[in-house]
């Protein structure tokens, strides 16, 4: 049993970074992720970590420095949010293409314009096809646990990982969390032995060579396979984490889903709010349940399909809209995953919480009521709905 303390999501992420004690952290500050690096810089100046800390002049530079560092075989981390992640975008693809196990602590925040500092998932959803593993956290405890696991996952899958928390709601909200003793974190993540490094004089290698029509496709095919295989690696790491620290994580969490007739699919902090509503509805005899996606990349579509196959009415909650006119990205992927089921469930989409709009209990209740309405009438009135927006 670790130490119980009250920490904000940012403090929890910074604490995990202290315990991981990465070789290199290169970062540039941005609200609401600034604190993570600020607290970590404090650990550095207090001599609590051995990390080479690089304060860069932009997020693009921060991730570029991380790429150089990881390529030379150093365990490397950074933190960012929102526009910062967008400015990293070019380098995100390079990190994953070079198969560098960098870990980002990401705080979800809306993208400009209009400018806003509050939570939605547009930033990481915009990076969903960049070849990074994406792990979403419901609360500070999950953020802490996920960040520790991310190091192992990245190094075994040889893919970079971003672990996210909801801006302000979790990043600046203080909650009770259990901190694992330093030695046990160290034991769990183990020593990093890079498979390839530019600094190995015995085995010189080239990284970043040009790939034309003759090889590019093959290398992408490998990356696709690595992402598929990452699923098993995430499960393995989570199992070991559970056996050591008694907190069980999977690709997603099922909450009262076994016999559910109505299910919500959600990512991040709203999952916790949905649990409260599910409990209330269950007391009233309504068979409500929740599927909370933890790992969005790789997208565990077979497992989600098997889990949701027998649930006739499903609402997928997206904290970002793809601006494609077909709703949010989670909706599109869940709906696609369910296409091959003969008894295809009814699936509708709710865009919610953009720019930090509070998603209250009555909003969630409304979604379940809408699902019950579809059950009664057999009719879907709104395929894509906007929860909590003023008409």
């Amino acid at each position, binding site marked *: 049993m670790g130490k119980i303390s009250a920490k904000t999501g940012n403090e929890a992420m910074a604490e995990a970074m202290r315990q991981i004690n990465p070789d290199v952290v290169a970062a540039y500050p941005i609200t609401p992720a600034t604190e993570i690096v600020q607290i970590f810089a404090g650990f550095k100046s207090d001599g609590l970590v051995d990390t080479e800390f690089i304060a860069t002049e932009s997020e693009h530079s921060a991730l570029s420095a991380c790429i150089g560092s990881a390529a030379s075989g150093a365990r490397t981390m950074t933190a960012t949010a929102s526009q910062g992640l967008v400015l990293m975008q070019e380098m995100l693809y390079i990190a994953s293409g070079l198969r560098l196990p960098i870990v980002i602590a990401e705080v979800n925040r809306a993208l400009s314009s209009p400018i806003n500092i509050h939570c939605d998932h547009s930033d990481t959803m915009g990076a969903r096809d960049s070849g990074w593993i994406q792990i979403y956290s419901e609360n500070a405890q999950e953020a802490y646990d996920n960040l520790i696991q991310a190091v192992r996952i990245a190094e075994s899958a040889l893919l970079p990982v971003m672990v996210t928390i909801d801006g302000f709601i979790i990043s600046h909200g203080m909650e009770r969390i259990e901190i694992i003793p330093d030695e046990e974190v160290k034991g769990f993540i183990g020593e990093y032995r890079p498979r390839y490094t530019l600094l190995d004089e015995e085995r010189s*290698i080239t990284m970043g*060579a040009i790939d034309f029509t003759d090889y590019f496709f*093959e*290398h992408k095919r*490998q990356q696709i396979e690595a992402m598929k295989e990452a699923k098993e690696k995430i499960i393995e790491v989570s199992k070991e984490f559970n056996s050591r620290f008694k907190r069980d994580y999977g690709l997603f969490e099922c909450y009262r889903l076994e016999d559910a007739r109505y299910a919500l699919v959600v990512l991040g902090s709203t999952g916790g709010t949905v649990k409260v509503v599910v409990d209330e509805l269950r007391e009233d005899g309504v068979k409500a349940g929740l599927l909370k996606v933890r790992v969005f990349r790789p997208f565990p579509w077979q497992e989600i399909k098997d889990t949701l196959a027998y649930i006739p009415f499903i609402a997928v909650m997206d904290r970002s809209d793809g601006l494609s006119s077909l709703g949010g990205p989670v909706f599109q992927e869940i709906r696609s995953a369910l296409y091959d089921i003969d008894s295809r469930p009814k699936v509708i989409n709710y865009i919610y919480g953009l720019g930090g709009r509070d998603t209250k209990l009555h909003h969630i209740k409304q979604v379940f009521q809408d699902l019950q309405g579809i059950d009664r009438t057999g009719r879907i009135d709104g395929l894509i709905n906007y929860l909590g927006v003023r008409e």
Partner: protein
Amino acid sequence: MSLKTKGWRELPIGGLILEGGTSEMYKTGGWRSLKPIWSEEKCTHCLTCWIYCPDSAILLSDEKVQGINYDYCKGCGICAKECPTKVKAIEMVEER
């Protein structure tokens, strides 16, 4: 080049090249559209071309230019440009 192109399962990940000095296997001579012709009579062996050639394609022996290695010479013309104006020992001609 007679290298057999490998399938994705056989290739090193991330586009890495797992050995050093592999540029020697890459014969850039095929890129050439202009070809440098070196004149043994005019050459004063000042070695300016040898210093400037980006592909180390100027062949040397005993600090004397011997000719051009057309396997690697990509025809950039830097050697012809840098050869002293009074000497002009290298002339670029159409590749055919």
